[in-house]
């Protein structure tokens, strides 16, 4: 009895060792060609696009993922070196620039960066694109269920409408939520005026009983399942909800809203900066960018790409805002010390 048991135990141990050994062999037998380390949002790049880059260049691309800008910053600050390309959002680019985490780009190596969409050419955080190139961009607006809300809303005011009590979701993001209310008051979303921030807080407190949830990750699901009929959020997820429930529509309120861009950058610690820039140029190639845009339902920063995007996506206002909308969008920028005011107001809002 005991003997048989030992045999199986040994067998198990042997199997484990074999598994380890086979993995070790595998990693050894790989060709010793160069490797590019790409640190990005989950699911941000199609595997077929990576494979085609690998075929073209003979380089192996290793993808690691992060889930928030703050996480990315923490990783780079704490000395995780070796990532060659990564994708912070616009405001995080400025933080990383200030901390000296980014390598300077060579425009000659990224020719595709010359074909940027109008409006992204001069990013407030890095107008000359010395450290970053916009990759994907979009707007923040309202996703709504047109079968429940017959008259298309055109103003942030609809999020204060008593009729939709308990069926509204807001982003779980302090700057975005304040951005929406500040624009509805006719103010800049980057205001540093304590009195105005205080007024904005009062409005949000009044809205709170109507709000079902503050969610950034799954408001598309809430919209599609009918749990909410109005959702403050990014266009991409709203476009995903549309695919599941055709009565979902998207609007950027007339008072104005956020424009955002995720940018490609090369961390200073990259060991292969030329290859990194080659990869950035590849991601911005019109054809590659168009496929990415279709996959993620975000707009591509390359103006040539839009024409190559399939019809249902290209003409979706949640993905590609029209010319008129572009006029009243605002970039979110660092508000300096006023961030503490926002912090405090947001905490109060969430606690009450």
């Amino acid at each position, binding site marked *: 009895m005991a003997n048989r048991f030992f045999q199986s135990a040994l067998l198990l141990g042997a199997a484990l060792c074999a598994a*380890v050994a086979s993995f070790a062999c595998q990693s050894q037998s790989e060709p010793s060609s160069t490797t590019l380390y790409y640190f990005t*949002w*989950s699911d941000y790049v199609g595997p077929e696009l990576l494979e085609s880059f690998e075929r073209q260049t003979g380089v192996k691309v290793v993808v*690691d993922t992060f*889930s928030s800008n703050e996480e990315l910053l923490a990783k780079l600050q704490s*000395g995780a070196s070796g*990532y060659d390309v990564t994708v912070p959002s616009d405001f995080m680019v400025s933080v990383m620039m200030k901390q000296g985490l980014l390598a300077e780009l060579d425009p000659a190596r990224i020719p595709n960066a010359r074909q940027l969409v109008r409006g992204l050419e001069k990013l407030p955080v890095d107008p000359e694109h010395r450290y970053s190139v916009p990759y994907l961009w979009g707007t923040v607006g309202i996703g709504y269920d047109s079968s429940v809300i017959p008259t298309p809303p055109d103003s942030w005011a609809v999020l204060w409408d008593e009729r939709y009590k308990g069926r509204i979701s807001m982003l779980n993001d302090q700057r975005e939520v304040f951005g929406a209310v500040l624009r509805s008051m006719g103010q800049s979303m980057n205001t540093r005026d304590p009195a105005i921030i205080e007024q904005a807080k009062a409005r949000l407190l009044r809205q709170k009983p109507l709000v079902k949830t503050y969610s950034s*990750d799954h408001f598309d699901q809430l919209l599609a399942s009918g749990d909410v009929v109005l959702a403050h959020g990014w266009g991409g997820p709203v476009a*995903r909800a549309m695919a599941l429930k055709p009565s979902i529509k998207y609007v950027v309120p007339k008072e104005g809203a956020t424009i955002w861009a995720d940018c490609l950058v090369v961390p200073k610690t990259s060991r292969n900066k030329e290859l990194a820039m080659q990869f950035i140029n590849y991601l911005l190639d019109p054809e590659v960018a168009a496929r990415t845009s279709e996959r993620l339902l975000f707009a591509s920063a390359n103006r040539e790409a839009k024409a190559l995007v399939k019809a249902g996506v290209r003409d979706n206002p949640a993905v590609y805002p029209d010319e008129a909308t572009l006029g009243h969008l605002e970039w979110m920028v660092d508000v300096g010390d006023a961030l503490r005011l926002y912090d405090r107001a947001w905490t109060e809002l969430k606690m009450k």
Partner: protein
Amino acid sequence: MMREKSGGWLLAASLGNLLFLYLPIAVLVVYSFNAAKLATTWQGFSLQWYAALARDHALMVALQNSVLIAGVSTVIAMVLGVSAAVGLERLPRRQRAWLDGALLLPLVIPEIMMGVALLLFFVLVKMPLGLLTVTIGHAAFNVPVVMVVVRARLRKLDPHLEEAARDLGATPWQAFRRVTLPLLMPAIVGAALLAVTVSLDDFVVTFFTAGPGATTLPLKVYSMIKTGISPEINALSAILVLVSMGLVGLSLLIQRKTVHG
């Protein structure tokens, strides 16, 4: 009469406890078989999310990383943990006390501190973060796990057995190799299974020590949540839960069997 009544309460309390522990997991597993793309509405039975998992290249890479790290870190933890356990049992009690504390500390300190400490250490010695640092981190928290299990078994062993072997002419190494080690085997295998499980499931230490090319399954799942909760995550979590439970169950079974046998 009285006994029946209190028995009923006990039953209700344990059922309540079980529900509390397992209901969320059950819901997660059930929804992994959902045909709908939404995690919140049920639209019939389907295995499509499991098929999607198998096709997901990024997930397969994460799985490879997880298995590799679990395997190697367990081997390291076994070597260190078993020798530490055997060595400690032989020390006089007074010398043992502080070593005991020091070696078991990783079990007690919050995992997040362990993660930060490891990260600071790797930065200090300028070791590039990656698969290697994660493996070392996992080995570090697995050593005390192995030690606890192996020492529990060691205490139950009859010290005379080894002495008898020495009397019969075995060298210390032979006595250990031929007598003590086989007797310890069940505890060792049990500890290894436990270590593999802890390593596969670990998030915090991995999060801090991971670098380029070292995304493990738990890290991957966490970053996937950002782009919406897809039933694919349910399917993956269901598999992880079942594998972990299986390994822990097997580990307990092996350890118990030999106590009686």
